[in-house]
């Protein structure tokens, strides 16, 4: 396959950045998208040019480190992570536009690498159950209906990649935040801190500069793990009932 890559290059956060076109030949349909970029980078390196920097690690769709806005969609044309996207989704002669995630809360570090530590800070604001190691009850002490456990699991599969933010026209982090709030709100272990958690995580989400939700559903449609919009509704419920009934004045 012969391709033209239109790639966002930006030296660092203070650089203005811009697109650079790279012709690329000899791409096999069996390559993953990131392997195609590896080929580009080997070529660039051989020519003595700075390779294109992008985030990636596990390359099996679970660590959430890879990103990339490919041809107008986060993680490209399939509903999967970029590392699981394969070149058979493209055709010979295509021009592929590759941009970084765009959000004020995800500043560009270099080229296609962005800083997603805002997600970590949202979790730090309350995305946990405050139990110390040791001294916890036996695992089977509290039965949890299978249907609830399964639903909590579905919310918990979020990989924190940020595709929801990238896809949202408002760069909103509601799907990410709601997935964690939902998971813990559904489980008995999360009940004690339920109200505090909703209030604090949402306050942090706002502080990070993410946008609001317009319920377009783009986030869920693009989420590589299929996190559902019902989580956002649940988060809203959690938040409204928390602010009305919690003791935080």
């Amino acid at each position, binding site marked *: 396959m012969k391709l033209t890559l239109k790639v966002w290059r930006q030296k660092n956060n203070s650089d203005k950045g811009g697109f650079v076109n790279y012709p690329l030949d000899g791409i096999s349909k069996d390559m993953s998208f990131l392997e195609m970029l590896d080929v580009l980078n080997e070529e660039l390196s051989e020519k003595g040019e700075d390779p294109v920097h992008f985030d990636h690690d596990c390359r099996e769709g679970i660590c959430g480190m890879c990103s990339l806005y490919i041809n*107008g969609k986060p993680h490209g044309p399939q509903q999967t992570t970029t590392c699981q996207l394969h070149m058979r989704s493209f055709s010979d002669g295509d021009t592929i536009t590759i941009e970084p995630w*765009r959000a004020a809360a995800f500043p560009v570090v270099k080229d296609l690498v962005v800083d997603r530590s805002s997600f970590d800070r949202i979790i730090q604001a309350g995305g946990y159950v405050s139990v110390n190691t040791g001294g916890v009850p036996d695992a089977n002490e509290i039965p949890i209906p299978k249907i609830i456990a399964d639903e909590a699991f579905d919310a918990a599969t979020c990989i924190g990649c940020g595709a929801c933010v990238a896809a949202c*026209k*408002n760069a909103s982090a509601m799907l990410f935040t709601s997935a964690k709030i939902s998971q813990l709100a559904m489980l008995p272990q999360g009940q004690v801190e339920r109200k505090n958690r909703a209030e604090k995580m949402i306050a942090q989400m706002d502080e990070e500069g993410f946008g609001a939700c317009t*319920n377009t559903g*783009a986030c869920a449609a693009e989420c590589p793990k299929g996190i559902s919009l019902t989580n956002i*509704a649940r988060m*809203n419920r959690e938040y409204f009932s928390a602010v009305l009934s919690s003791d935080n004045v």
Partner: protein
Amino acid sequence: MSWVTKTLSSTLGRKLIMALTGLFLILFLTGHVSGNLLLFKNDGGEAFNIYAKFMTTNPAVKLLSWLTYLSIIGHVIYSIILSRKNKSARPIGYSESKASTNSSAASRNMGVLGTVILLFIVVHMQSFWAQMHWGSIPTVTYGGEEYKDLYSIVYAAFQVEWMVALYVIAMIFLGVHLSHGFASAFQTLGLNHKKYTPAIEGLGKFYCIVIPALFASMPLYIYFTQS
């Protein structure tokens, strides 16, 4: 900040205001359209004029109208606040975007749709509401009581082609706005459930077609049948 202002200045609090005012306006539209159906009554506007007087004088209705004005203003102001926040959340946009593959055009353009509807509301209120309240309009007498003849104003307005066109187009915008707004308001309130959400979405689809269609049929009816 008190917890109230803090809540109302959070993204979710602001969305709550959008949803509540939106839902109230949906209720208002339902009332508005059912009353206005009297325009179809072939009685030279009698029933309509009696209804119009009731609507402008009854204290309970007055309270509701004030709530409606507030809702419109709140809906508009908070949409501006949220739009600005949303804009600043992505200072640099994408050079290429295939948003149409993941979301409806209506959901992505609520602001544009809303702005058109707002402009329409201004024209609409100027034409009828302001006339009714402060304008000098002819009066009619039914059963010894004097009524403002709003019907004649409406009748005259809908003889003008561009007015009819404006109303029909505005109602299309309203329909599209509602096609997303109706179900979206419930989602924002957190009312999402496997059992009920399909019904809410179905109702939303029905509502966003039927209500604007009924509104639009009024100028069309008058224009085509009464001239």
